[in-house]
């Protein structure tokens, strides 16, 4: 029968996936350190139509969309003046230990001090390597330098926040809660270069551009509609074919 019905349906499914991505981005337009998804499109198999058609006449099977990773664009830095808000400028991630003991990467720099005086993320994942603040030191006394060195007042260094990068951030496995796990697809984390610095008293905003996301949504919606028109047309053609014999 008409293979075009299914090609158009595949196109609609691809646009739907794109809308899912845009919706998730818009929902995270204010999430600290969030990176918007990249939706990749590709066309599908081509088969010869056969019959009386020439050998170059092919029926394409439509389109497919998939998430091919995340944008690594820098999000806008927002000044918060909170001593434990630390934004990463440039590539790189903080490394944290999750409650189950596994390591994860994050760019969310809204840090806290836990009951033992250790620096943790807002979800309580302990920053690695551990940096403990002596009892009686308030957060206001802490200073964090661009290279990550943490000091209490003018005193000695308590430790250094280390930044890590991976070769392929697109391959990182999202764990939710702003956390990512390194795996074979992303490469092993290594120390970040000198082009990554820390900014105390600021947070990195989401890199979702609401305007771009809205335009993407409109485009996806209209393309969805176009493909649905093709389905309607094919349906009418089948109807006409059915009426050949009245």
């Amino acid at each position, binding site marked *: 029968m*008409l293979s*075009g019905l299914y*090609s*158009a349906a*595949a*196109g*609609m499914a*691809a*646009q739907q996936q*794109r809308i899912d991505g845009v919706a998730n981005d818009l929902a995270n337009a204010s999430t600290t350190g969030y990176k918007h998804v*990249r939706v*990749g*499109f*590709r*066309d*599908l*198999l*081509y088969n010869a*139509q056969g019959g*009386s*058609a*020439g050998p*170059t*006449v*092919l*029926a*394409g*099977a*439509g389109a497919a969309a*998939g998430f*091919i*990773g995340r*944008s*690594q664009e820098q999000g806008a830095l927002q000044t918060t003046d909170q001593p434990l808000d630390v934004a990463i400028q*440039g*590539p790189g991630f903080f490394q944290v230990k999750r409650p189950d003991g596994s390591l994860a990467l994050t760019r969310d720099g809204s840090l806290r001090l836990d009951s033992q005086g250790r620096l943790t993320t807002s979800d309580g994942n302990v920053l690695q390597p551990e940096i403990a603040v002596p009892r009686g030191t308030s957060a206001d006394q802490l200073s964090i330098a661009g290279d990550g060195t943490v000091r209490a007042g003018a005193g000695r260094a308590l430790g250094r926040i280390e930044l890590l*990068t991976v*070769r*392929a*951030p*697109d391959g990182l496995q999202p764990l939710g809660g702003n956390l990512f796990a390194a795996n074979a*697809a*992303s*490469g092993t984390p290594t120390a970040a*270069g000198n*082009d990554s610095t820390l900014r105390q008293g600021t947070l990195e905003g989401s890199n979702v551009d609401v305007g771009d996301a809205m335009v993407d949504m409109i*485009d*996806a919606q*209209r393309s969805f509609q*176009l*493909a649905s*028109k*093709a*389905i309607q*047309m*094919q349906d009418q*053609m089948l109807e*006409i074919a059915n*009426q*050949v014999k009245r």
Partner: protein
Amino acid sequence: MERGLYIAASGMVAEQMRQDQIANDLANASTPGYKADRVTQRAFADLLLSNTATGQGVGGLTTGVAADRMVTDVSPQPVRDTGEPLDLAIVGDGWFGVQTAQGTRYTRNGQFTAAGDGTLTDQLGNPVLGRNGQPVKVDGSGHVNASEVGVFALADPAKQGDNLFSGTAGGIASGAVRTGALEGSGVDPARTMVDMIASFRAFEAGQKVIQTIDESLHKTATQVASPNGGA
């Protein structure tokens, strides 16, 4: 007489194939670097009819049409900025080379990503080739050097699916690689919709021809030589 039935039917089949191609184009309205197709039709060979009594020629009669060739418009499309370091577009002529299990394939869709070892790959993980024919590497900060990425000339490009084309390689092409940009889809929604309507009406006309011939055949079978004169 009944020859006309098959001629009309061949037209309907050819229009169906055109609709299949249009549906595929519309499905790919957002695929970067997609190249739109066009199905051309060709008439079958003409028969020369002649009067059997006098031998005098009556004229030619085609025996229908067939979808003959699918032509892909590979002309470059406008490029838009995305800001993603691994979104690449070729401004001007040329193709990205991609190493697949079946050999080197070519694409204009530059939505690339990086593998764990830092190799630049396409969406399906095939390494992207540089000017020297070797896979391109992404640097430590996640960027690629646009001048390292190969832009190849390609003769007789043929669609293979997954954004890939095969063809005869012809050295380096003149196009320039731009990072942070993507080439748009070659599908023009307005033109494709008009093509779709035109093809639909041609299909409909084919059906009407079949119905008309069918009516004539019906009259021939039931009225000609009937004792009461077909009343």
